[in-house]
Every structure is written in structure tokens, then in C-alpha cells.
């Protein structure tokens, strides 16, 4: 019986020694949602041209493409930009001609026409797309301290479960536009909260709220939805080794890569 108080003390000390973030694990639901498989954002069906299916079909038939393009609310055309945000948006519009991109970064990885997948475990959720963009979500209570923050194009994400809803809190995202020219030109002070859940079978929704005192007048809310990706038997990741575009030009594509090598 003497061992019981000792064990209890050890247990208490052990619990106290667990980082605050890990204690959050107590709130993890006993049964985690099954979001397995590959998912694509709704409204972004892409033809072999790299353009929307409807636009490609119209062009192939010599008709005027229908208005609108991909469903990209995170481009931010409806966001409540303040004067600085409007200035950045206008500058972005002037920069988009034929610019290179290395991927999508955050938050655009949630709104790209690339498949994504969710790896859901008890202490971590990873959201990964075919461009190797990743949101690595720790089931933790706090972000690192200001001194320990490491801003990246994917940011720092912590998460928690509210029933079957995964709430992801992301900060420390470098200006997304610096990575992908089509991304919203938010500042690295932006705060992103995503609420992801399966609202019906084979259908995920992501309600995202973005606050940024530098570029927005108030919360910017966007709604994304995902459906199972068709045609993908497996996820394949590939590097970029054939980017022929030249940012700032609007006139053409560079020579084939073998000619670039021989001329270089």
C-alpha cells in the first residue's frame, strides 16, 4: 500500500511535466474522423490545358469561355482590404504576368486545383498537397513564443478538436504573395483560423477566418469545400525542373529545356 501514494505522486509529477500542448490531448475524441483518400477543392476541375474544364471546352470549340474561372475565394477579391491591403492587391494585379511559382504555400494550398490529403493522428494532423505544400498541425494549446517563432510560407499551426470539427490556428505565415504571385498579399501578422469538418459523406468543408491588422479592416471569412479526387490512383510528388516562364513578360515561353542547357 505504501507504493500507492508514491505512484500517485509520480503520476501527478509526470502529468505536470507534460508540455501544456500535450495536455490538450485529453480533449482528442476517442474516435478520430476518417478523412482518408485524396480530395480536391470543388469548382476547380482542371483540363489538360491547365485551365478550367469549361473554359478549355469553349476555347476548343472556338467559343467565348464562360465568365469566371476557378473557384478561388482565397485570391481575396472579396476581402475587406484596408488602404494598405488595396495597395498591395493593386500591385499584385500588375505583377501577375507570367510569374513563376514554386508551389502554393499557405493558405492557397487549401484553394489550389491540386489534390490534398489529410493524415489524422492523435497528436498531429498533416495536410499535404501534390506540390509538397504542408500544414503541420500540432495538437497543442499554444504557438511558440514570439522569440521562438519561425515564419515560413506555411506558417505555424496548432489544432484542437471540437467534436468532429478540426480547428486549426495558424500564424507566422510570410506574405503568401511573395511565394505564389496569385496569393492574397497578407502580412506576416495575419491570423488564420480554419474549421474543417465532414458535413456529409464524401464532402469536407473548411470555414476559414483571416484577421490581419496590416491589410484588412476586419475579419475576412471564406468557405471552401472538398470532394474526393477522381482519376488519382496515388499521390505523386514531383520537383520543378522545367519552368520556362519569365516573370514580368507577357509574350512567350522560353525555349525547350535542352536548348536552354546548350545555350547556358
Amino acid at each position, binding site marked *: 500500500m505504501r507504493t500507492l501514494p508514491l505512484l500517485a505522486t509520480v503520476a501527478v509529477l509526470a502529468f505536470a511535466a507534460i508540455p501544456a500542448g500535450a495536455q490538450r490531448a485529453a480533449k482528442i475524441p476517442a474516435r478520430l474522423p476518417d478523412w482518408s483518400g485524396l480530395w480536391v477543392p470543388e469548382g476547380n*476541375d482542371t*483540363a*489538360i490545358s491547365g*485551365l478550367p474544364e469549361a473554359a*478549355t471546352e469553349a476555347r476548343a*470549340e472556338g467559343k467565348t469561355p464562360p465568365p469566371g474561372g476557378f473557384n478561388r475565394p482565397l485570391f481575396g477579391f472579396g476581402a475587406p482590404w484596408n488602404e494598405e491591403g488595396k495597395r498591395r492587391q493593386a500591385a499584385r494585379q500588375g505583377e501577375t504576368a507570367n510569374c513563376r511559382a514554386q508551389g502554393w504555400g499557405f493558405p492557397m494550398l487549401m484553394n489550389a486545383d491540386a489534390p490534398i490529403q489529410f493524415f489524422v493522428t492523435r497528436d498531429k494532423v498533416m495536410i499535404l498537397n501534390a506540390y509538397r505544400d504542408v500544414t503541420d498541425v500540432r495538437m497543442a494549446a499554444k504557438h511558440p513564443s514570439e522569440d521562438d517563432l519561425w515564419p515560413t510560407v506555411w506558417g505555424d499551426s496548432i489544432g484542437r478538436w471540437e467534436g468532429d470539427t478540426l480547428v486549426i490556428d495558424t500564424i507566422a505565415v510570410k506574405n503568401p504573395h511573395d511565394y505564389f504571385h496569385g496569393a492574397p498579399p497578407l502580412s506576416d501578422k495575419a491570423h488564420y483560423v480554419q474549421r474543417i469538418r465532414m458535413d456529409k459523406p464524401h464532402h469536407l468543408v473548411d470555414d476559414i477566418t483571416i484577421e490581419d491588422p496590416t491589410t484588412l479592416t476586419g475579419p475576412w471569412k471564406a468557405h471552401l469545400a472538398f470532394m474526393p479526387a477522381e*482519376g488519382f490512383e496515388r499521390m505523386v510528388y514531383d520537383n520543378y525542373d522545367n519552368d520556362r516562364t519569365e516573370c514580368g513578360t507577357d509574350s512567350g*515561353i522560353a525555349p525547350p529545356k535542352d536548348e536552354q542547357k546548350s545555350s547556358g
Partner: protein
Amino acid sequence: MRYPIAGALALALCIPAAPALAHHSMAMFDQTKTVTLSGTVKEFQWTNPHCYIQLMVKDASGKDVEWSLEMGAPMYLYAKGWRPSVLKAGMPIKVTINPLRNGDPGGVVLTATTADGKQIGRNLSRAVS
């Protein structure tokens, strides 16, 4: 640019469509023109951020001209049933494209068929002849 005013106007008209872009703007392609090319595959580049078909096409004088034909990223082609091995050097194919505005032999591929008219992969939800 050969037609600066027309080009600038066309670019300006394309700006509202900017949300359609993925990796880069598509303003360099003339979406008002659809051209059909028949030729022989020199190389199929299954690469990021875009696939390319290097297609040898005979011009009006019978001379071989190499066209650089841009496509979407490999993942989009994969989802439409394309594979890295689907086009081989020497294979005759027919493509419809929006050509480059600057007159260079290039464009963006809208549809692709074998020489006898069979759709390669699933270019679109429904075949376009």
C-alpha cells in the same frame, strides 16, 4: 512585341480573368484563336510546373518547325488518364491549341488526339472533335 497596342489591350482584357491562373498568367496565349496542328512528337516533357509537347510540324513550304506546346501540370494530366509514357517520340498526333500571341511556334494545348482521331486520355469531360 509586334502589336503593342493590341497586345496591351488584350492583356488588360485578360486581367479580370486572372483568378483562372494557376502557375502563371495565360495572357501570352491568344484565346481568340484556335489552331489545329498535325505533327510528330519530338519529346513529351512530363514535368512541373507544366508538361510540354515538342511537336515537329511541317510549315507551308514543307520545312519542319518545332513547336513548344504547353500543358497543365502533370497531376492534372494524370487525373485525365494521361501518363508519362502516353506520348512517344515519333508518334503522329493532332492537337488544338491557343497559339502564342507573339507569333512564335508555341501555344497551350486544348485537346489532343492520335493521328486517327482517338482522344488521348480524357482531355475533357466530353470529347471535342
